[in-house]
Structure formats: structure tokens, C-alpha cells
């Protein structure tokens, strides 16, 4: 079967979580024996090439691309699948609730602007949900949300990632290292890293050798925290001496850092959809401290495995974060560390490994495969 996958730009398999999920989808589709044409919106003439190729199904990634390309793509006559990465509007609404916004605005103005953006985003996403032949979302809670809004919409969950697990070096060879992975392009990451460096890390840094932050980080709100103390910022850099920014790294180097680390961090205070970083930590056998937002979409299956969230300590307040990190850093808790490490990895293998992902993709396409 010929499956076209449309993205707004070049797909970066090592980039943002959205790009990675598209990359995983393409790989799974090809592994299942389907032909895949990757269509890059930024290439002029892409639509003409797509029309000649005559796809049986067209997968369109992200709301902006789906909504602006809908008119052109619908003329192809093939079913259109909207590959939604999350419900952006919910993320924006959460951001508004938190009052995160432009630092030049007052809290009230920022909140009002975020609410207005969320409303505009909802218009875009509602268009996608109601015009797609099928919408794919990564979590059951998002599927329920869309079905409640649009009962006639055809919406299903697709396991979003295909993650290989990596053997951890073991506690004896573990550096007292905490890890955050994620880049500045994703707004919740920017807020989360600022919270981590400003409030959390200064309170726990003495218990660790280092904090490693993997990803691209150049935004002034973060880099200014790392500058030496000055009269303008007397506290800058305090307790941040053992923080290391690596920039973006190849997967093999990420593996080296993670498999010898002690804990993964997901300090996300808002957001929507599935968080790859949390699953990445667990895939490396890393016990993880996360906010509730960092484990969105994990709930039910993990309940069955672990009694809570497999491999994850959920902490939503600063006090809870400090307690959780100090306990994980305490070598007296080696047994608990191993239990969390094993439970997290088992969870990823069973739910987010390449095989369950491939089966889910096969199920999605099978309805059209029979007709092609």
C-alpha cells in the first residue's frame, strides 16, 4: 500500500519529539512492507509529485500543516489521517493557567493573551478533527477529549513512539548524575528548565556530582542563570557550578550519559500529550522524577505493573521534588532504585517498544490495506 507522510519541513529523527514520532511512524510503516513517500511542505512542487504517486492514504503531521494543506490534499481523493502530536490548545490553556508568558506583560495581560491564543488554536484543531478521515492521538485521555467535543469525529490512539531499551550500567557504576533531555523549542521545556535551575537544583545539588542538560539551549532566560554573579544578579550561578549543558548529542552519546546516570528529570509544569523524555529515561533504566504533566498518558497500564507509575516518582511541588531527589540520591535506597529501574524499563518494552508500535500502526492501516 502507498502511504504518503506529509511534514512541514525536513524530518529530524534526532530533533524534537514530534519529528521523532513521525520518523518512528515512517520506519514502522516501511517495516510493515508499505511504500512510503515523505512529502516535505517546504519543497515547491511536492503536491504535484504526490498526485502523480497516487497514495492510498495520506498522513498529515501537525495542525498547521493539516489545516492549510487540507484543500489541496483533499483533492487527491485519498483518506487523510491527521497525525496530531497532542492537543495544543490544552497545552496553551495550561500555560495560561500558570501565567507563563511574555515577561514584558503583566500577569493578567499574559493570561488573557494565552487564553486568546488557546481559543484560536482550538479553532485550528477543531478544523483538523472534523475534516480528517481519521485523527491519531498519543493518549487515551486526548482521544476521549476530542470525542467528547466532536462525537462524529473518527479518533483513535496510536502509540506514539518506538523506543529501544538500553541496558543500564548498574548502580555500582553510576555517577551521581541527574539528567534532563529536551530542547528550548518546546515551551514547556523552557519553563521546566528555568524552574529546575532556579528553584529545584540549588536545593539538591550537593547530593549530586552533576546535572547534565542535553539539547539546544541558547535562550537568555536560561543562559543568564549560568552567568557569574554580578551586582545586577547577585545570586546568578549560585549552586549551579555542577550544571553542564551538552548541546544536542548523537544518540550513542546520549546513551552513554543516561546509562551511567542516577536519575532522569521531567519538571514540566504544563503541557499536553505524551512526553518522550520521560519514556527515554525509563528506556535507559533511569528512575525518574516527574511532574504529573511528565507522565500524561501513562496511567492505566503502569497502574497494573507497578501500583503507581512504573519507574517514576511523581512530584508536583518544589518540596516534593527536593524530597524525591534526595531519596533517590541516597545510596541506602539501592533496592528501591533497582526496583524503579527495572519497572520503568519493563513498562517501556511492553508499551512503547518497536513491536507494540508496529502492531498499532498495522492495525491503523489495515482498514485501507484490504481495499488497495
Amino acid at each position, binding site marked *: 500500500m502507498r502511504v504518503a507522510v506529509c511534514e*512541514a*519541513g*525536513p524530518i529530524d529523527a534526532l*530533533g*524534537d519529539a*514530534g*519529528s521523532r514520532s513521525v520518523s518512528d511512524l515512517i520506519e514502522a510503516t516501511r517495516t510493515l512492507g508499505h511504500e512510503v513517500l515523505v512529502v516535505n*511542505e*517546504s*519543497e*515547491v*512542487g*511536492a*503536491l*504535484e509529485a504526490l498526485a502523480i504517486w497516487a497514495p492510498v492514504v495520506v498522513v498529515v503531521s*501537525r*495542525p*498547521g*500543516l493539516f*489545516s*492549510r*494543506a*487540507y*484543500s*489541496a490534499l483533499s483533492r487527491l481523493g485519498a483518506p487523510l489521517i491527521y497525525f496530531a502530536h497532542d492537543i*495544543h490548545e490544552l497545552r496553551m490553556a495550561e500555560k495560561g493557567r500558570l501565567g507563563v508568558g511574555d515577561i514584558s506583560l503583566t500577569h493578567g495581560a499574559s493570561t488573557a*493573551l494565552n487564553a*486568546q*491564543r488557546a*481559543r*484560536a*488554536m*482550538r*479553532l*485550528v484543531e*477543531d*478544523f483538523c478533527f472534523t*475534516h480528517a478521515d481519521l485523527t491519531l492521538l498519543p493518549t487515551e485521555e486526548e482521544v476521549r477529549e476530542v470525542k467528547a467535543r466532536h462525537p462524529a469525529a473518527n479518533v483513535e490512539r496510536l502509540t506514539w513512539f518506538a523506543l529501544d531499551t538500553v541496558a543500564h550500567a548498574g548502580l555500582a557504576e553510576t555517577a551521581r548524575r541527574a539528567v534532563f533531555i529536551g530542547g528550548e*523549542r518546546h515551551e514547556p521545556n523552557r519553563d521546566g528548565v528555568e524552574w529546575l535551575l532556579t528553584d529545584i537544583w540549588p536545593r539538591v545539588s550537593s547530593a549530586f556530582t552533576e546535572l547534565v542538560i542535553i539539547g539546544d539551549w541558547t535562550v537568555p532566560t536560561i543562559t543568564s542563570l549560568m552567568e557569574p554573579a554580578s551586582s545586577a544578579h547577585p545570586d546568578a550561578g549560585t549552586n549551579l557550578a555542577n550544571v553542564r549543558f551538552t548541546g544536542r548529542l548523537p544518540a550513542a552519546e546520549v546513551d552513554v550519559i543516561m546509562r551511567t546516570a542516577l536519575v532522569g528529570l521531567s519538571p514540566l509544569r504544563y503541557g499536553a500529550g505524551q512526553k518522550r523524555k520521560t519514556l527515554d529515561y525509563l528506556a535507559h533504566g533511569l528512575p525518574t522524577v516527574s511532574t504529573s504533566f511528565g507522565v500524561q498518558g501513562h496511567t492505566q497500564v503502569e497502574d497494573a505493573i507497578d501500583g503507581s507509575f512504573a519507574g517514576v516518582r511523581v512530584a508536583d511541588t518544589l518540596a516534593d521534588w527536593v524530597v524525591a531527589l534526595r531519596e533517590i540520591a541516597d545510596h541506602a535506597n539501592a533496592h528501591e532504585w533497582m526496583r524503579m529501574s527495572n519497572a520503568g524499563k519493563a513498562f517501556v518494552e511492553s508499551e512503547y517498544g518497536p513491536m507494540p508500535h508496529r502492531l498499532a500502526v498495522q492495525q491503523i492501516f489495515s482498514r485501507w490495506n484490504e481495499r488497495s
Partner: protein
Amino acid sequence: MSTWFRLNSPAVVFDASADDTVIINLVSGRYFRLNAASSLAWNALLASGSRAAFAASAGNAPELVASVDSMIGALTAENLIVPAGETAAEAASWAFAGFSLESFSDLEDILGLDPIHEADPDKGWPAARD
């Protein structure tokens, strides 16, 4: 046949509340806000089948008659409405109290996506931006 205007559907969608209206151009990624007074004009414009019917629905208020062209100009410049043939449709009565279109571009980073897309904002994909 004379020309009037209709919503540029499906490229444009909007959401009206009691206080205001939010309109988004899905192709350009720009979105717009109309306050309550301007929303009345927007609704009447879309419900009217001709310039005469639009003006008549507001009692041929001189302020409206004088500003119809600029209103149409602002909306067509953003491709929110497009020319269409006249019809006999009439809008419900309303009172003109001014018109202003607030424009916002802060969703473009999300809708334009991580790599900035190069589609022409007027023609849409796959036409390239000049």
C-alpha cells in the same frame, strides 16, 4: 452581476462569543479579534447578499456607508473574505458602532511549524513565498 463577499471557507474559520469574535486564516496562520461592536458588522456582512442589503440592515447609517470600503479592504487584505456574486440574502437589523480588526501573529511559530514553511500566504501550499 455585481460583487459582494463571502467567508473564505475552508481557509478561514471563526468563533463568535457574546463579547467578541476570533477569526483565523488557516493558510497564513494569522488570527484576528473583533470586539463586540465589530462582531455585529462581521455577522451582518456575512449574512448579507449585497452591499445594499448590508447597509440597509444597519438603517443605512452614514458612518457605515462611509466605512464599508475600508472594512472590506481590511478583511480582503487578510483573505478573510473573498468576492462572490450578489444574492438576495438580508441580515437582521443591527446598529453600527464602529469596526476595527485586531491582528495577531503569535501563533505563526506553532502553525508555521518548527522549520519555517515557505508557502505563499495567499495561495497556500504548494505555492512558494516570493
